[in-house]
């Protein structure tokens, strides 16, 4: 059941992205940046956590969760250290995503040949 919910919610978020492509003629970069900002704003109102509780990976896998994790790490540190915490905590949770993207992206580019 949780797989089905993840499928439906994740798929629905992708459909919103597809509509932004087709109807509003946005580029993938514009859609991705908008989604990250939307994720951060939704988390600002505490809504994104509820979506994760409901949909699991359906909410953590789309790029919106990147904005949510940025804000979440920042707020967790800010509870301890105030405004300074925003700066020290912002990459705390997204560290896994960014560092692995850099590492794997670099290694793949190093060892694979460009195609097409």
């Amino acid at each position: 059941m949780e797989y089905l919910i993840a499928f439906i919610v994740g798929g629905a978020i992708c459909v919103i992205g597809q509509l932004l492509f087709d109807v509003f003629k946005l580029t993938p970069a514009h859609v991705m940046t908008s989604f990250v900002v939307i994720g951060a704003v939704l988390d600002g109102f505490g809504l994104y956590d509820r979506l994760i509780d409901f949909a699991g990976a359906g909410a953590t896998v789309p790029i919106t969760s990147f904005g949510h994790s940025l804000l979440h790490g920042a707020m967790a540190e800010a509870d301890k250290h105030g405004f300074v915490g925003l700066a020290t905590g912002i990459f705390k949770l997204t560290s896994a995503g960014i560092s692995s993207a850099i590492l794997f992206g670099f290694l793949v580019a190093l060892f694979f040949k460009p195609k097409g």
Partner: protein
Amino acid sequence: MNKQINDKNEYKNNVKSYQPKPPYLANCLKAFIVGGFICAIGQVISNFYIYFFNFTEQTAGNPTVATLILFAALLTGMGVYDKIGQFAGAGSAVPVTGFANSITSAALEHKSEGVVLGIATNLFKLAGAVIVFGVVAAYIVGMVRLLFEKLL
């Protein structure tokens, strides 16, 4: 009539009738199926981390994202991800795998310019925008929320 066609202010409206209409429903259906499928795989990986490595539902998102990024980077290197992207549109761009694909493909594209100037400097060519906007938005929202919490 002729005047209206040559009017450059009317260009956008005139050219519209010559552009092919995208098949909205088919594109959305493809995006839904592929995007949903990637999220379902994410749920499998997420459960794996919850049961074997003591993550909770909230924290399992991070290792899951890292694992999906590894798969997406490999698929991009093998040239498979771009084919999925052509079929699925937003279904492959919106999940975090699209983020990994943009990093890897930008680096691969510039490989011929060398390891430092080609691969390393171009890694964030496309993904940089996502990080910049994410951080700026998170800062602003965080500031506002903190101010409210301090005031109330």
